[in-house]
């Protein structure tokens, strides 16, 4: 199958992944657009026979991270790690369990970026831990620990009082 055709087939999933990362439909499609443009420009870097989807997800995720960092420097968003993690990490435990019942977007928004991307890859996109680690270019142990934290926060916010 041609490179472009494979990418077209990937688009519905890629849009979902981008939606989860950016939490905004327009931002998500902007991200997809940037990712496709990047992929077309660097297509010779993709090795035939390796997985195009993993490669595409990696490009998308890296562009998103770049954008978050740039926005952070411009002061548009809070810096990735500090403020957001405080709200999400420690703050979440103080919030009453089940506060956000049914509000998946709201709960996902409480997650730090590095947890949200793992949650999307494993729990929504269905990648194995090893595959997610390859996409994110981190050790598998990093994937499992971030996933565990993200998952606990989500279950706490969305679930029944323990």
């Amino acid at each position: 199958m041609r490179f472009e055709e494979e990418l077209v087939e990937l688009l519905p999933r890629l849009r979902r992944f981008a939606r989860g990362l950016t939490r905004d439909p327009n931002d998500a499609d902007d991200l997809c657009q940037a990712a496709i443009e990047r992929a077309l420009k660097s297509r010779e870097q993709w090795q035939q026979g390796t997985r195009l989807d993993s490669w595409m997800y990696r490009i998308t995720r890296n562009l998103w991270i770049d954008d978050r960092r740039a926005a952070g420097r411009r002061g548009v968003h809070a810096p990735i790690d500090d403020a957001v993690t405080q709200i999400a990490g420690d703050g979440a435990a103080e919030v009453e369990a089940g506060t956000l019942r049914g509000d998946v977007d709201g709960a996902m928004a409480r997650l730090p970026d590095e947890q949200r991307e793992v949650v999307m890859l494993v729990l929504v996109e269905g990648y194995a831990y090893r595959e997610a680690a390859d996409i994110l270019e981190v050790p598998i142990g990093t994937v499992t620990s971030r996933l565990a934290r993200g998952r606990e926060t989500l279950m706490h916010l969305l679930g029944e009082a323990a």
Partner: protein
Amino acid sequence: MSFDPATIAAFVDGELDDLTARRIEREAESDAALAAEIARHRTLRTQLMAHFAPVVEEPVPDRLRALLVDDRVDTSLADRREAKRTRFAPIHWGAIAASLALGLTVGLQPWMPAADVTSANGTLVASGTLAKALDTQLASNQPANATVRIGLSFRDRDGSYCRSFQAKDLAGIGCRNGDRWTLERTMGAETHGDYRQASSGALAADAAAMMAGDPLDAAAERAARDKSWK
């Protein structure tokens, strides 16, 4: 509960070897806390999948498609016929269901509607061919070439009927909820490239963990079907 949280999570994510998975499943039968923890993790997975599934069904915006597809090229009549034929060819339900549930895009085309799995109130529900198979097909008497193969039928702890199924691209367990089948468990069924395989062992382990009592035998399965799984 003798399993740590990471192991329980890995069990739910299908990341454990078969031996450990079976140990957890056996222990869950008698350990209510473990069973509840497994259910809590599954609920989150289903909730997230159902929440994001509709994005895959949306038409891809033209501005994205246009980067990859040159629609201006005037294709030959034969090409156009072929395109038309492809567009209206029977939809392979399994591929679409799997792409909804698991994020695979095997055979998925942007213009195709979702066929056999839909989401309702945040949960995945069987429809079309899958719903029909779960409604009517008997494990004891199914055609060799059936699109959907029914595995075990059983009652869960709430007394609802559940049935495990396997199709070309999707396997899972559907439980009767009113007049629908809620998909309590879904996994990819067949290899496509390196996609994760769902072994029938993992599915059987899930069924065993959900089951109250024994699976239905052929007579009980038929009787339950004849009463519309009520």
